[in-house]
């Protein structure tokens, strides 16, 4: 069977050499593999183990909802709702910019955004934080989310993400207080206040949200997850629950707030009000009209909405007139003039002065409203009937007594023309006219004349260059009512956990204390009480039949240039031991008694729980 040449008796030397060679090759190869394995596993094992762990572990941020904001009775003013945002996760995005641009173009079409705008928003953030995701659009509709999920391969790296969006159930009511929430921006990144905040986290950007951000801001949770090669979640390794921010209880009373804004809407639609506890500085209401719906800021704000809230034609709804107004105050300023005159000894509460109906200063006649003459009167009566001439005289005398700045000194002490220090950002100080101020303007050529005594006469009744806002007036009136304490108004009352348990009481800051004699402030209080109750009192008819005793002052500020007068009312109640001050103004309401005083009455009704409808049906009101 076997052929000759297939017989091979023994191992030839030649074959032995060749087999040895094959064995040698095997030996060398095994040696190479062993050395390589030794290097990989024994010498570099730790490094590769770290790499393997890097491979599989991803940290996913779990957004914490912000704390809710409630009113003094626990009613929700600001809460959260869950929404879907479209985010880009760097892991999944195309690696090159041209590819990403194509993605932005597709995404732009889907989200109705300009691709350029997406690129401008996203690219810098990707550079700054290459591993954390970037929000493209907040609050997208569910069908769009489904579309994205069904077409993942067309949108690599695009992922819908659950986010919490602020919600303002009362819409326009209190809109100016809360402010907005937005992502931490480049500029804020280095602020030590935001040490724990990551780029892309949402923080308070204005209003209460900004002021109390450190309480409202929650602590984001983190989920360390194990992912497989495709990035699919495989196992949760460690989870730190997101912690919702603390609840913030404001001193605001939603009813008062609503009443105030409704009252303002019933006027010319442009105005503001402030309601404060005269003893504690707690603000029960602070509103400005026109208002806006803060829900537009809860997600990426639309250009159209933004234009609207900043539109001057629409009265600049974003402006908080209660702390940024800057208006002449009219006769409501007489409280300041009275305090200055009494405390600097120009008059006593009983010093009689003659009101002949007008006073000529520097050749210019200053007259009472309507040209009436009130005859001889002392301070109480002058406040009650709001005699301008009486206060003109005080202004005139103040200008020539001592350093001539008694009015300015006292106005300043009472907080006029300076920030009240309320716990809201962006307060404007307003303007208290002084000789120095006007003379400097004159020297700079910005005005036609230097300071004259006429300026002080104007100031004595809150006309002319004075710029103050309802919050400042409320603080000044409160100081007279509480024995000389100039309060810093506070909105924030306390920090609570979700169930309403107090975590931290927000301490009322210490008030500035003024030396005002009890006799003098009583005289002023009496005058204000008369103005709201005595026959001939400027607001007596407005408060007729109101079950709470009110002390209050009307104000009508001329704004010149044919513009309608600014209408003011500041009330202290209940007399004689006031608990609240209410300051309200309407930019074009005319006489204080005609517009602002009835608004104040509505607010006071809400404040004291007076059922106005019942009163009206009783026929007692003659509004």
């Amino acid at each position, binding site marked *: *069977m076997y052929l000759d040449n297939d017989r091979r008796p023994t191992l030839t030397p*030649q074959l032995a050499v060749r087999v040895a060679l094959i064995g040698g090759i095997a030996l060398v190869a095994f040696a190479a593999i062993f050395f390589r394995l030794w290097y990989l596993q*024994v010498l570099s094992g730790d490094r590769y*183990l770290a*790499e393997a762990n890097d491979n599989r572990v991803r940290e996913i941020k779990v957004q914490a909802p912000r704390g809710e904001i409630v009113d003094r009775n626990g009613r929700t003013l600001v809460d959260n709702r869950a929404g879907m945002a479209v985010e880009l996760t760097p892991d999944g995005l195309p690696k090159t910019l041209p590819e990403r641009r194509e993605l932005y173009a597709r995404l732009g079409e889907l989200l109705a955004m300009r691709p350029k705008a997406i690129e401008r928003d996203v690219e810098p953030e990707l550079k700054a934080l290459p591993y954390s995701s970037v929000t493209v659009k907040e609050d997208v509709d569910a069908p769009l989310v489904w579309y994205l999920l069904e077409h993942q391969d067309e949108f690599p790296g695009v992922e819908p993400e659950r986010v919490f969006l602020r919600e303002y159930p009362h819409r326009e009511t209190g809109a100016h207080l809360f402010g907005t929430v937005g992502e931490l921006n480049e500029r804020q990144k280095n602020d030590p206040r935001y040490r724990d905040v990551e780029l892309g986290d949402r923080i308070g950007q204005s209003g209460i949200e900004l002021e109390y951000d450190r309480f409202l801001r929650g602590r984001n949770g983190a989920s360390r997850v194990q992912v497989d090669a495709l990035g699919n979640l495989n196992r949760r390794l460690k989870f730190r629950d997101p912690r919702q921010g603390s609840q913030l209880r404001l001193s605001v009373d939603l009813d008062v707030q609503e009443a105030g804004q409704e009252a303002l809407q019933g006027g010319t639609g442009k105005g503001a009000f402030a309601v404060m506890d005269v003893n504690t500085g707690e603000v029960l209401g602070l509103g400005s009209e026109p208002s806006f719906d803060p829900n537009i800021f809860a997600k990426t704000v639309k250009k159209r909405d933004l234009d609207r809230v900043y539109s001057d034609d629409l009265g600049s709804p974003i402006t908080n007139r209660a702390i940024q107004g800057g208006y002449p105050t009219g006769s409501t300023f007489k409280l300041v003039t009275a305090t200055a005159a009494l405390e600097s000894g120009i008059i006593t509460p009983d010093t009689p002065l003659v009101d002949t109906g007008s006073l000529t200063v520097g050749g210019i006649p200053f007259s009472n409203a309507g040209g009436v003459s009130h005859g001889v009167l002392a301070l109480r009566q002058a406040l009650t009937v709001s005699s301008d001439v009486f206060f003109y005289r005080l202004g005139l005398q103040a200008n020539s007594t001592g350093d001539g700045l008694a009015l300015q000194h006292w106005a300043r002490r009472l907080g006029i023309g300076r920030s009240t220090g309320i716990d809201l950002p962006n307060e404007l100080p307003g303007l208290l006219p002084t000789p120095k101020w006007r003379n400097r303007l004159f020297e700079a050529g910005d005005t036609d004349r230097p300071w004259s005594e006429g300026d002080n006469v104007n100031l004595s009744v809150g006309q002319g260059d004075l710029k103050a806002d309802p919050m400042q007036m409320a603080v000044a009136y409160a100081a007279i009512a509480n024995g000389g304490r100039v309060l810093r108004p506070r909105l924030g009352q306390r920090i609570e956990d979700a169930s309403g348990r107090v975590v931290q009481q927000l301490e009322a800051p210490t008030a500035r204390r003024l030396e005002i004699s009890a006799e003098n402030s009583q005289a002023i209080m009496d005058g204000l009480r008369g103005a709201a109750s005595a026959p001939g009192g400027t607001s007596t008819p407005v408060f007729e039949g109101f079950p709470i005793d009110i002390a209050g002052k009307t104000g009508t500020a001329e704004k010149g240039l044919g513009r309608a007068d600014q209408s003011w009312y500041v009330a202290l109640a209940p007399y004689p031991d006031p608990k609240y001050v209410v300051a309200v103004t309407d930019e074009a309401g005319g006489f204080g008694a005609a517009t602002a005083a009835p608004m104040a009455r509505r607010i006071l009704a809400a404040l004291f729980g007076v059922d106005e409808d019942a009163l009206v049906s009783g026929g007692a009101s003659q509004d």
Partner: protein
Amino acid sequence: MNATPVAHFRDRGVRVLPIDPLLLVAALGLVAVSLYTVATATQDDIPGDPNYYLTRQAGYAGVGIILMLLISRFDYSRMREWKMGVYGLMIAAILLVYALGFSARGSKRAIELGVINFQASELGKLLLVLSLSAFVVDRMRRLGDRETTSRIMLVALFPAMLVIGQPDLGSGLVYLAIAVAVLFVAGTRWTHFAALGAIGVLAVVIVLLAAPAMGVEVLKPYQVDRLTAFLNPSDDPGAEGYQINQSLTAIGSGGKTGRGDDATQTRLDFLPEHHTDFIFSVVGEELGFVGAAIVLSLFALLIWRALRILTMSKNLYGALIAGGITAMLMFQVFVNVGMTIGIMPITGVPLPLMSYGGSSVLVTFMALGVMQSIYARARETASVKGL
């Protein structure tokens, strides 16, 4: 060899052919490690069926062992007479894949045969060894001629080119390695090997450098990428370098004693092909240096026994077959393991007895059956001669 006549007659009486126990131990040991590794590496791959790959691999191994034992009883020398039929069968099977083959991952390599996808190129490895050795034996008298060397190489190159065209570059290279080994064992002159080596270098240069430069695509771009990626895996960690990097990470993270059930690279799918071509990486990650060393030792044992059988063979045909099979095993082990540790290109060569896959497991066991047959005939002849 020093068996007494009594013992020798008793052996013959029950007709129990001897089997090389160490070769058997090495093969069974490797299959055992393979089953363990496949089981742990694939338990999450098929949802709801954690043992999908294990049961199949165990089935292949069982059938393979039976085939090995049957073949070891068979006299391999008969194959010499059927050399043309064997060679024809190989070519026909490969062509059948072209005709009927279905596309698996873009390449046609397998024919669906009920339970297993039959990979003709795997069976081709053994058929080539058997037929090529026979051709060489026939031409032994003219072994010194250049014509013999070139003819034998062409006979191997034809099926090699066919499977490379499938495209299965790895198997094609195995064919060439087999041819070189058979010639080497037969005693072909060194100068011929030098010439073959020069041609080989030239071919690599043409395929990888010259042809693409002239716009001719000999290999698919992904094949070129795979072949060159190991030189610089971090260049492109996203694509071809990815496999190598993940494999290195897997093996390296195994450390001295392995990560066992914490083997995340494998379990979380970071390592592609973890049950087939990259199964050695799984061993490295789960069992560490110790486990890898055990597997390599088993292969070393296997190769040692194979070389020993080569030297024992009662005839030249058996020696050439043993040489071809040894080369086939060595080439696959070194190229595969080298690939997983980043010192060899990715060519898609399975790790014999370890990688999941019916064709590879069955063919390797059949090859070992032939080895046992050579061993058995050698022992038998030795007994008859009373050596």
